[in-house]
């Protein structure tokens, strides 16, 4: 069995889990957002890698080229990246508002203040 061809997937999985762990364990909200982005980017890389064909060319039709990589994952990820940055911005804006209201962006401090009030 050819495990070398799967190695790239494992790299994405490790990256994704780094992001996931960061999302779960970080108490700082900005770190959570960075973790979410890490997770997201590794999913992007995974998607793009499924579209790759050995010896395939960039999906722009040219004379004399027969094999192209699959353009469909490219389109999906293209829009996903831009939507991703927009939602990241929304998340960061929420963090700024939380900072305004609570004076902290540490999750447990915010929770504590909520419990006290």
């Amino acid at each position, binding site marked *: 069995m050819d495990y070398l*061809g*799967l190695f*790239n*997937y*494992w*790299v994405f*999985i*490790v*990256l*994704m*889990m*780094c992001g*996931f762990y*960061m999302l*779960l*364990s970080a*108490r*700082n909200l*900005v*770190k959570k957002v*960075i973790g979410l*982005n*890490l997770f997201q*980017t590794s999913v992007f*890389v995974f998607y*793009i*890698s499924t*579209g*790759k*064909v050995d010896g*395939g060319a*960039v*999906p*722009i*039709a040219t004379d004399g080229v027969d094999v*192209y*990589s*699959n*353009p*469909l*994952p*490219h*389109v999906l990820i*293209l*829009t*996903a*990246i*831009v*939507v991703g*940055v*927009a*939602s990241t*911005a*929304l998340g960061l*804006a*929420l*963090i*700024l*508002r939380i*900072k305004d209201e609570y004076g902290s962006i540490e999750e447990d401090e915010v929770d504590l203040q909520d419990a006290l009030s």
Partner: protein
Amino acid sequence: MTIAVAAVRTKNLFEAAMLFGIFSLVSASFFVVLDAVDVAMTEAAVGAGVSTILMLSTLAVTGFKVRPRPVQRDILGIGVSVLLGGALVYGTLDMPRIGDPTAPVQTHPIAEHYIDVSPTETGIPNMVTPLLASYRGYDTFGETAVVFTAGIGVLALIGRRRRRDGTPVESCEGTDAMGDRHRVLRVVGKQVIPAILLYACYIQAHGDFGPGGGFQAGVVFASGLMLYMLLVGIDEAERVIKPKVLERLIALGLLLYGGTGLLNIIQGGAFLDYRTMAHDAVHGLHYGILAVELGVGITVTAVITTIIFTFAGHMRSRQKALPGEANAAADGGAS
């Protein structure tokens, strides 16, 4: 991968944000290796440029340090991550090898249609563009609407609330200081900006033939404007690019997209069926794709620029509280 681990470990948020920018840039070059040039262009502009700046400007307000706390391993977090990772690795054992031409992704009839038929059917060599704007036009319309909503959301959360309160907007303190300290940066940057903006217009208009299109052009254009904002300061930038105009443009882009669809209905086709737009189906398709891509480009540019300006404006309103850190963020982003 090392970068990612370092980003998880570091306690300094500034480092984490910069490491994330580097990670994005690396993954952008990875996209080029995997033949996804359109995606690489977007990721380079968005990941390494826009989102890093956004994170830094957030950090400028919230502070760069994670509050020190006793070292504790989050056993549950590690456990869940490892478990999920293990399950995913187990799942990959059945997956096709990378680059396998017989993988289901490649042999599915729709992939063959997009690759073999679309260049002749639409007359557009770049397969990504018609796929984005025409075959999956509804999807892209939805995505543009999401970007639009996010822009509105940011404005609603941290928008120009203060000005409506009647509190005077603080004047350009601190922005000129930056120009004095970084004259070389400023002069060189100003020379680069027209090239960036021109390049953005090129990839907007040339998306049919080379890599490019509305999303790519939008983010590149926005990062050009962002560079301008970093160089001359937010006040100066807002004088040149009026936030009100940007807010109109956000809506205009989406209206252009939807309006094209409605025009198609009026002309007797389905929503976003561009073939009705000209006497010849292929020409109609070209006009439609150009109009839609322009709409996407306008919305994306306007939303991202608005978001950046809003963050910068928020940062400025807090600059009194944290003057050193705000400047540090601007320096870090520009260098």
